[in-house]
């Protein structure tokens, strides 16, 4: 069964550095999402992306964050200048259509540790 894949599985970065988290959604999916989970807290929505543009973003997704689909297969999340509080598990998800009962398929996540 096709899967959403995320790389790297663990990223350690110095505070203030830029980081790019990568995701390869399922190939025929059109809607893409990023979520994050700070240790011990809820999974929180960051951003959704469709037709090469952001369709919705949360208040967490400030100017330090950006998303891109650079080559038609990868879907990336960039954090421009990382802060300690960006340490979290980041999950990418995709869905084939945006019918609300269609599930979003999740990747294994990238654990981001900011030092």
């Amino acid at each position, binding site marked *: 069964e096709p*899967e*959403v894949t995320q790389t790297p599985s663990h990223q350690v970065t110095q505070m203030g550095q830029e980081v790019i988290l990568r995701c390869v959604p399922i190939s025929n999916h059109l*809607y*893409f*999402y990023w*979520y994050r989970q700070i240790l011990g*807290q*809820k*999974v*929180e*929505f960051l951003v*959704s*992306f*469709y*037709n090469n543009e952001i*369709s*919705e973003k*949360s208040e967490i997704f400030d100017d330090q964050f950006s998303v891109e689909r650079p080559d038609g297969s990868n879907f990336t999340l960039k954090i421009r200048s990382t802060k300690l509080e960006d340490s979290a598990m980041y*999950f990418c998800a995709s*869905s084939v259509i*945006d019918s*609300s*009962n269609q*599930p*979003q*398929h*999740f*990747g*294994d*996540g990238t654990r981001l540790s900011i030092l």
Partner: protein
Amino acid sequence: AQTVTQSQPEMSVQEAETVTLSCTYDTSESDYYLFWYKQPPSRQMILVIRQEAYKQQNATENRFSVNFQKAAKSFSLKISDSQLGDAAMYFCAYRSAFFVAAGNKLTFGGGTRVLVKP
């Protein structure tokens, strides 16, 4: 804004027994979708079961079933005949059926860890 609450941080069940995970949510919307996702250790979240709010019949998927009480805004998950492979973190999630923007987000509860004892 919608909120989802899972009041049980951890539940323990004996293999072959039944366990019920609770989930409550708060919304002013009348039409929405509810999901249970399972996240085994170090693995991706996998959809277990979904429920459309307009359907009165409770969803069932093999050993997994839900008790959807719309008036009470409650959506519990029952795992019957528990197996060792059911051990995981379980997340309840809400998704609006109202089209706000392309890519309606999921709102998650805090999760319930299920331990299965052999």
